[in-house]
């Protein structure tokens, strides 16, 4: 069961194999939940939406015949998130046009990188995600939390591969800038 592909697990789960379903849960549930949580900052909503994703894939099981299960799951998740933003009416729906961002050639000294603890990095990422624009945050979450490759990201976002690369690069540049600021600030605080 450990080495089975998600699509094989899915076929087994459809026959009523609870172990296969459990394995699918282990593979995706946490990532889907974190995707919603980081994009909405609402734990209850994230929990509801995560359950909804899994209900949707099982209810619409006939619709998935080939391709990547992961891509299918996150396309549903992404659509639910956009629906939620629309329903809430508080946010602008992420624009397709990205503002220009200049690569400032973020460089952090090796000693500074080495000094960052694992947990510290997790905290920095968490804080920086909050400061990202919605399209950037969605891109970062889909690539680094959901674990999608760039082609998979393109499929989920329903955009050409070139556009997907540009979006991920844009999001990364912004995230790198924010992280770099955090790291340098921490370094300054330490030196003081």
């Amino acid at each position: 069961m450990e080495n089975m592909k998600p699509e094989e697990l899915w076929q087994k789960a459809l026959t009523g194999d609870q172990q296969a379903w459990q394995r699918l849960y282990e593979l995706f549930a946490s990532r889907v939940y974190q995707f919603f949580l980081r994009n909405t900052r609402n734990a209850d909503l994230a929990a509801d939406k995560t359950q909804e994703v899994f209900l949707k894939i099982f209810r619409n099981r006939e619709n998935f015949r080939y391709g990547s299960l992961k891509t299918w799951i996150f396309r549903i998740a992404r659509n639910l998130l956009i629906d939620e933003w629309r329903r809430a009416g508080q946010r602008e729906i992420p624009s397709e046009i990205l503002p220009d961002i200049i690569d400032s050639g973020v460089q952090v000294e090796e000693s500074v990188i080495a000094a960052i603890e694992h947990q510290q990095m997790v905290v920095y990422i968490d804080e920086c995600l909050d400061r990202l624009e919605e399209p950037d945050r969605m891109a970062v979450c889909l690539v680094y939390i959901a674990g999608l490759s760039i082609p998979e990201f393109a499929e989920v976002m329903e955009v050409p591969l070139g556009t997907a690369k540009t979006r991920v690069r844009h999001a990364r540049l912004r995230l790198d800038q924010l992280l770099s600021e955090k790291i340098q600030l921490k370094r300054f605080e330490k030196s003081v």
Partner: protein
Amino acid sequence: MNCEESKNLIVEMNEADEVSSNAELSAHLAACSTCRQFLKYELKMRDGFEEIASEPLPAEVARKILAVPRIVSNETSAASPEWVKRLSAFISSMTFKIALASGITGFAAAIIFLRGFTPGFDRHSHPAAEDLKQVKRLERPLFNRDSSFPQPASTTTVAAAGAAVTINPELKKKLETRSRLTDDLLALKAEEGIGVTAERKAAVSEHIPGAVSFSLDENADASGRFAMAPAAPAAETGELVFDEAEQVSAESDDKAQDAMVMASAPKLKEVLRSLPTSAKSSGVTKSEMADSFAVSEAEVISDPRAVVILKFLESNGLVSEEGFIDLDDLFIKGYIDNSQRREWRAPDGNDWYLTRTGNRPAIILRRKP
């Protein structure tokens, strides 16, 4: 390949292992310290995201998601047309079962009746039919009593054989660990009552401040015993007196080293607490010993992974100099893969440190400078 292309490839890679599989990128990284630095940053960042992605779900959500197949199947059955429901109710009812049983019995009776009274052919009185019955009886005996004929194994035998060959490897590992813990306990108890010599106490106090979690005593006595001492500085830990824990018998140096690294702080603490009350050979109670260990736990904590890392370094000829082990660097240079890098990551605040006690190399955890 220039730095821009290199950075783009690093950002777009799916798995960190892709770095080593790309010869051009590897060559560039070997020559460019800026890109190596960027790769280290990238790896740290991805590890951070991975940590976020693996944060567990609330229990209630987990329970609901695991129940999704059941919920959906209930919905499906609830949404069936009325006639399907009635049909399924009728099929599962007692009336249907009785009717079905009667039908099958009647059909079987009809077959027997019709075959027994075939008009124009009296099978019981015809001599040819009698001969045929004899021949059939000889050719196809009802039960084969021949011992050479392969008999099916009984269920019990099959089950027993199955159990014998399918021992769960995880269970096996747990049993081995438990057995080792018992060995440690027995070894420590066997040492009970042996006092600490003045030389031994001096050896403890002479350790480098903030250094090794445990170290082999080179002045081990001739009987093959060696001492295991917490080497945290006295200024940080207070006066450490470690009689039982210091002396562990070992058959060989290799085994002793394994035991040293395996004796992680929590385990040793547990063992110390389990010692009998009489273990006060140097005037220190067992709880005092355990507590003094707890004070320095963060400093002296060791890890079984140290053995694995040391073996790895030895097999790759990387044990020449003392110092911190940079797993990221080993990964970038292609010595280890990404899973090993993650698996071997030292606990926060510490790093693996290659040290030497005499000529013997050892891996310990040391606070980051």
